[in-house]
């Protein structure tokens, strides 16, 4: 098993006819992901390397039974595309688009939360990879192999870094989930950790957080109450000065909130081991996995 994406994934790609959208969708397909449809208003009836394109998500779902959406449209249209996917009954929505207005994300979050049957990952995230099964997004799959470590991260490259170090020690992954670096991610650490906790294949969970917000603190509390599997954590941005946005819109220490040390303290207080560098994280994980 894996979480979110796998052999049952039937992927519809919003923005399939765009340069980036087609490039990554075809990459995903080559990896084995079942890419069933594209959505581009006005281009219904065309195809991209054999994948049929539809004008709307409703038409795509009706024709192909797509159950997963990947959003690759420009930021000003992305929130609308996510809402459209939800309206069409798509259960899993992975939004890669970076730069969506924060208020749009707020509306999307609050509309989607009324529908318990839908899950959004992202936006501004690298996607979800279940090694050997399906890749939805832009995660370079070559560095990862199937295994029993679940990874959830606010950062893409940092995930690759950690995943690569684990792979070099011989460990693979159940699923890698990039939840994205935006202020209002559709899925939080808690949401994904809950899925890993329930996934029989996942034996250890790595969470890679960063400064800004309180998602890591919330994860710590959830881990204390609900998670029996070992969790290893990393927090990036420990030395970042307050008031500066560190690349991710969400990575900012504002006033007394969002600081890295407080996140580490919160995690360590509930027994989560926190590595000080990505390398340390991999070492701790390996140590635990080797028992």
């Amino acid at each position, binding site marked *: 098993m894996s979480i979110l994406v796998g052999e049952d994934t039937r992927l519809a790609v919003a923005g399939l006819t765009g340069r980036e959208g087609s490039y990554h969708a075809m990459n995903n397909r080559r990896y084995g992901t079942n890419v069933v449809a594209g959505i581009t208003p006005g281009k219904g009836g065309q195809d991209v390397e054999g994948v049929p394109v539809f004008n709307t998500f409703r038409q795509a779902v009706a024709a192909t039974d797509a159950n997963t959406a990947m959003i690759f449209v420009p*930021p*000003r249209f992305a929130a609308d595309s996510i809402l459209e996917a939800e309206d069409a009954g798509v259960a899993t929505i992975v939004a890669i688009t970076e*730069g*969506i*207005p*924060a*208020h*749009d994300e*707020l*509306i999307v979050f*609050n*509309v989607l939360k009324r529908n318990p049957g839908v899950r959004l990952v992202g936006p501004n995230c*690298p996607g979800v990879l279940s090694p050997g099964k399906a890749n939805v997004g*832009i*995660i*370079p799959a*070559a*560095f990862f192999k199937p295994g029993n470590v679940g990874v959830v991260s*606010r*950062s*893409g*490259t*940092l*995930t*690759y*870094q950690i995943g*690569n170090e684990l792979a070099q020690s011989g460990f693979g992954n159940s699923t890698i989930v990039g939840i994205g*670096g935006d*202020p*209002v991610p559709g899925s939080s650490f808690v949401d994904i950790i809950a899925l890993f906790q329930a996934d029989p294949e996942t034996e250890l969970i790595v969470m*890679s957080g*960063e*400064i*800004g*917000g*309180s*998602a890591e603190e*919330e994860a710590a509390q959830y881990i204390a109450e609900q998670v029996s599997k070992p969790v290893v954590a*990393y927090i*990036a*941005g*420990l*030395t*970042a*000065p307050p008031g*500066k*946005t*560190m*690349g*991710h*819109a*969400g*990575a900012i220490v504002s*006033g*007394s909130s969002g600081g*890295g040390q407080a996140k580490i303290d919160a995690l360590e207080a509930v027994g989560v081991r926190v590595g*000080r*560098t*990505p*390398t340390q994280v991999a070492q701790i994980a390996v140590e635990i996995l080797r028992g």
Partner: protein
Amino acid sequence: MDLLEYKGKQVLARYDVAQLPGREATTVDAAVAAAEDIGFPLVIKAQVKIGGRGKAGGIKIANTLDEVREHATNILGMDIRGHIVHELWLQLASEIVSEYYAAVVFDRSAKAPLVMLSTQGGMEIEQVAAEHPEALAMLHVDPLVGFHPFHARRLAYEAGVDADVVVPVGDMLATLYEVFVGEDATLVEINPLVITPEREVAALDAKVTLDDNAMFRHPDNATLDDSSAADPQEAMAKKRGLTYVKLDGDIGIFGNGAGLVMSTLDVVAHAGGAPANFLDAGGGAKAEAIAASVEVILGNPNVKAVLFNVFGGITRCDEVARGIIEAYEILKPTVPFVVRLDGTNDVEARKLLADADLPHVYPEATMDGAAARVVALAREGVVAA
């Protein structure tokens, strides 16, 4: 985008938020001219995007044109915690009966706007929250439902505002919420919100942050940007579409992916060094973009060594190596480079660098090792080009 006080007030004025008469000025003469218009007594306020202006001497009362001239001369050019004062705001100094605090902030944890109101205005809200929690009323707004009159009443009565201004203060909150949504703001803060002896409610200060990602919806707000006043490297980076943040140290940092770059800063600090910048070259950067990044990094005269830490996913390491070589040849840097490349096409990249055989470019195999090396090199000092 954080707005200077007076630009925030321009935004509020569009929504008819009551304010005291005022004008901005960028020179001493303009300040004097503004003062003649406004009348006395007036307040001269340094326009910088940082708190603590008053303590730093950036806010002064003037009762005469001579005093205006004197204070304007002193304040313009002042360095307030690293922010140079280029602009002033002059405003009629009204008598004030009460100072309240009102704000709408984007609360990430709750995924909802948070409206706050306190009768303890004029100080930092963190301090109010700590010292007078009973005087701070807070309410999360469901963005689909919006902010309704009863929300305003609830906040006003909970905060304990004077009975006779419950309605105008509530109306002010409703307007601030309107600004928050209408302008795609992530912060709209009035501190203090004042009550005059005539029992009028007015915004004495304004702190407004707009969402850069939503600027396409507000083309007019582009004029509110004052990045011209920003650091030259940050301005250059912005022009080139790079995510660059200037820091206080001497080790230049180049990386791809916000998380990895943040992590690189941490690892360098952990090794005893001080980063000079945050720079995320993003995914899929090409050689010329990489060369441009290097130019931005080296534009900071404090930089004594540069660390390249790249994990190639979409970004191809060979492109990065080519960019480094290109930049090196054009810029002829006088500081050493430490390069750690892993991921897509890393083998080819390492070969490119080895073949180029540039002086003072040191490959490293691991992130931690690269950090230790660059810290050591920065300590050794500048090298010959």
